[in-house]
Each structure stands twice: as C-alpha cells, then as structure tokens.
C-alpha cells in the first residue's frame, strides 16, 4: 500500500498530472464549498423544515424537520424524517451555545456565523456562490477546450463493462490502488464519480439554488416545473449538499489511503509519482 513516500527520491517515475488551472480551480472549489455548506446550514437554521411542492410553511406537512421540545424539565432535540422521529439532542434541533441548551437546527460549530444571523449567512452564501459559479464556468470551458474531460474523465472503451467495474470495486474495498501504468490515469470509479459530481451534483446545486430565487423564477419559470416547485427545489438543494458532503468525506478518505503526500503534492505542484510497486496479483 502506498502510504508515505519520499516522492522523487525513491526514483519512481514522476508524471505531470494536474494542470495549473485544474489545481487552482480545485482549491478555489474547496474553499467555496466549505463556506457554502456552513453558510447554507445557517440559512437552513432560519426555518429548519423541508417540504415538497410549490409551497410549504409551518402548517404544511414537512418532509424533514428539526425542533426542540420540552419534555418535563428537560428539553430534547428531535429530527423528523418522514414519519420517523430521532432524538438528536446535542446535535440537531437542540444544541449548546455558550454552555446553554438552545433551539437550533444545526449546532453552532457547523454554521457561519456561529450564532444565528440569517442576514450574514445569506451574504456569505451568495458571495461564495458567485465565486463558485465563475470558477465552475472557467473550469468547464478549460475542460472542454483543453480536452481534459475527454482525456481524463471520459471512461475509455471497455471501462464500463460490468466485469471491469466489479473488479475495481473489489480492489477499492480491499484498498488496493492501481500501480504502474494503471496509475497514470484515473480508474473507472474515479472517472464516474468525478463526472457525477462535476456534471450532475454541482449543476444540480446551482439550478435548485436558482429555483429558490423569486427573481430567477421570472427569468426561467420552467425550473419550477423541472423540480416540482420552490419547496421541492429547496429540499433537493439540501439533499444534494448532503450528497456532496458524503462525496468529500469519501474523496478525502481515498486521498489519505492511497498516498496522502503524493496526492496532495500532485494537486499542489501538479507532479504525481507512479508507484511501480510489485505488480503481481495487484491488478488484473
């Protein structure tokens, strides 16, 4: 397993893996998505209930909601998902703010700012949403014109065969990562995941976000039909953010498990060392 490596010193071949634009847009994205998530949770906390359809407020049935309820002399935080109720005291619905149990959707260590302040949360969210969108467009234009998408992200012929994908899933589960020539390009699971994030989840975030805007609804009313209404769009926005968070967790875990130094270096300097390894039985 490639864990810590000395990079070039070991005499392993080094390839130039990530172009400057890819590296820059990656780190700008990390920064934007972090602020967008935490300021988004601040905005969510202003009304911690999600609905389906065109409208939804206190008297309408919610799909996911968080609340604090008084149970005798102590308060509890409850999270409702459909007809299920979970006690999430201390984390969701009720958490400590300066040592005092406070009714809150998400706890203060997950929101920007930490205290409840919808106006600031929105300012942060929209500023970084713009930065995120501009960064995304530059990346998309670059990916198309530089053939980055076709060369690096489009699965090659044969890569989508069930047998091949099955084989990769088994190798991933056993934490066996490609070596030698195989390590020169993304594996199929990586390609599919990145394609799903870049072309599905991130655009979905932007489009559901815009669908919540009353101004943008007048520009593109069809978005309301695509997502089934403003409140549905708000719910999908939240669930997609949750999916992106799950992606980041797995992505970071994979970065760590498959050689954190080599991976980080390649996303900072562009250079990635190919582990020749002992190839017997590791692949194929």
């Amino acid at each position, binding site marked *: *397993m490639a*864990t*810590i490596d000395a990079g070039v010193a070991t005499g392993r071949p080094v390839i130039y893996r990530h172009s400057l634009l890819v590296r820059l847009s990656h780190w700008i994205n990390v920064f934007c998505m972090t602020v967008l998530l*935490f300021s988004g949770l601040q*905005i*969510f906390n*202003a*009304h911690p*209930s999600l*609905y389906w359809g*065109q*409208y*939804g*407020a*206190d*008297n*309408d049935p919610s799909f996911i909601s968080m609340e604090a309820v008084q149970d005798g002399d102590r308060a509890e935080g409850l999270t409702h998902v459909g007809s299920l109720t979970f006690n999430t005291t201390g984390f969701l619905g009720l958490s400590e703010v300066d040592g005092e149990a406070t009714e809150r959707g998400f706890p203060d*260590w997950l929101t*920007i*700012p*930490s*205290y409840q*302040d*919808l*106006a*600031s949360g*929105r*300012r*942060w969210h*929209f*500023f970084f*949403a*713009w930065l995120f969108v501009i960064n995304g467009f530059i990346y998309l234009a670059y990916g198309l014109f530089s053939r980055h998408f076709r060369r690096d992200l489009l699965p090659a012929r044969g890569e989508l065969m069930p047998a091949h994908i099955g084989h990769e899933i088994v190798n991933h589960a056993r934490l066996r990562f490609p070596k030698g020539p195989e390590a020169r390009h993304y594996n199929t699971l990586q390609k599919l995941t990145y394609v799903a994030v870049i072309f599905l989840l991130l655009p979905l975030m932007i489009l559901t976000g*815009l669908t*919540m*805007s*009353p*101004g*943008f*609804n*007048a*520009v593109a*009313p069809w978005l*309301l039909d695509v997502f089934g209404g*403003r*409140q549905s769009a*708000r719910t999908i926005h939240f669930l997609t953010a949750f999916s992106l968070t799950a992606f980041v967790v797995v992505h970071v875990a994979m970065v*760590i*498990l498959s050689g*954190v130094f080599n991976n980080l270096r390649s996303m900072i300097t562009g250079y990635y060392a190919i582990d020749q390894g002992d190839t017997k039985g590791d692949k194929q």
Partner: protein
Amino acid sequence: MSRILTRRRFLIGATMAASALGLSGCDALVESDRTKSVLKIAEGFSMKTQRFLLGDNALAREFTEADLSPVFRANGTSMPDNPQYLDWMNRQFSTWKLEIGGLVDKPMQLSLAELKVLPARTQITRHDCVEGWSAIGKWTGVPLGALLKTVGLKPEARYIVFHCADEYEKSLDGSGWYYESIDLVDAFHPQTILAHTMNGRDLEVAHGAPLRLRVERQLGYKQAKYLTRIEAVADLGRLYGGNGGFWEDRGYEWYAGI
C-alpha cells in the same frame, strides 16, 4: 497499518484544530466592516444579472386556486399596537387614508373605498419568506404603476418608499418603524400592486390590513404591510438607517430577488 492510522489521526486532529480555529476566527471576520463591504458586491452582481436576464416585465409565476396554501402564515407584525392604527381598525378603516407624496406633481390622499373602486388586478402568487418557507395566496389590488401615473412622478424620482403603521422594533429614536422601498422598474411592473383583498376577502389585520404591497419577484420582507404613505424620493440615504428598508437597515439585501 499503524503508520496510516497515526497519519490519519494526525490529519483528522489537524483538520479539526484548523476548523475550530477557523470558525472562532470566522465570527470576527463576519463582523468586520471590510468583510461586509466585500460580501455586498454579490448583491449588485445578483441584481444586475437578474435585471439583465429579466428585462423589465417578465412575470412571476401565477398559480391556480387549487394551489392556494390552506393556511397562509402571517409573519412579522400581526397586530400593530400603534393607537392611531387601532383607531382606524375599530372604524373598519373608514377613516384611514393612503397618502401619496414626495417627488410627485399632484400629491393625493385616497380612502380605502376610493382605492377599491379603481381598476384592480388579481393574481395568485407565491410569497417567499427570506427564512425559507413559501405560501401561495390570491391578491387583488391597484397596480402601483397606474397610481404613480395619476400623481405624476417628477423626473428626479428614483425610488418609491412605503411607510407603514407598525413599529416593528420599539426605539426612542423611531428607527424601528417598518418601511420598504423599490425602484421604478419594480414600481411599474404589471404585478406590483397595492393589495386590499386576499383570497377573495378584505385583507386581514395579520396580513397587513387595509393595504399591503405585493412585489412578486422579490422576497417576503419587501411586501410591506399596513401601508399609510407612499413617497417618491431621489435617494434612500436620508431615510431611517439609509438602506431603504427595515430589514435592509439590519443587514439584509435591498435587492431581495434571491
């Protein structure tokens, strides 16, 4: 294996420490005036982009009777405690009058009865609170643009300000009175109306009786309730906190299209 775990633990620990530092540092950053002025750039971007894409007359989605919210949540003030208002309310608003003034050629006053006989527009639209919830209601009222044409705007008029009968935040200096403002693009938009009727009945007190503004392409806090006076002005700087609205003076965007 142990080497990985140590490294992993170190990284997780380092990330948590960094984010804890980052987050406590964040509140200081959030409160800095320079940060606030930088973040404000986004509001101008959103407004210019939306206006560019919208043109002046793109309509907000209109719904059908079947889409009406069973219960339309009332927000903000639901009963002004201003004695003048209570007096109007006790007389079924028969003594209430809407003043239209400021930078206009012919200032005028209109009673509720006079407003109700003017040509009206009815629209079923969605009300979006800045907090995230939405409700659909049916509004009937006088198009603001028609009234403004009647009084005649002076050329230097740039904004229409709405003064309200509710003091949302009690204060000695009177800075807590609810007010709102829109520019002329929204003022003359066909769906911008002064609503006196909601869901086919006289506007209820909780929803802003006897008259409230509907600006359908913006968020709920722009839909000022309990209107008493409409004023055409050249700039917003001299009114209350100078940001063009009660919530705007408290950090919210003046352009509430998103």
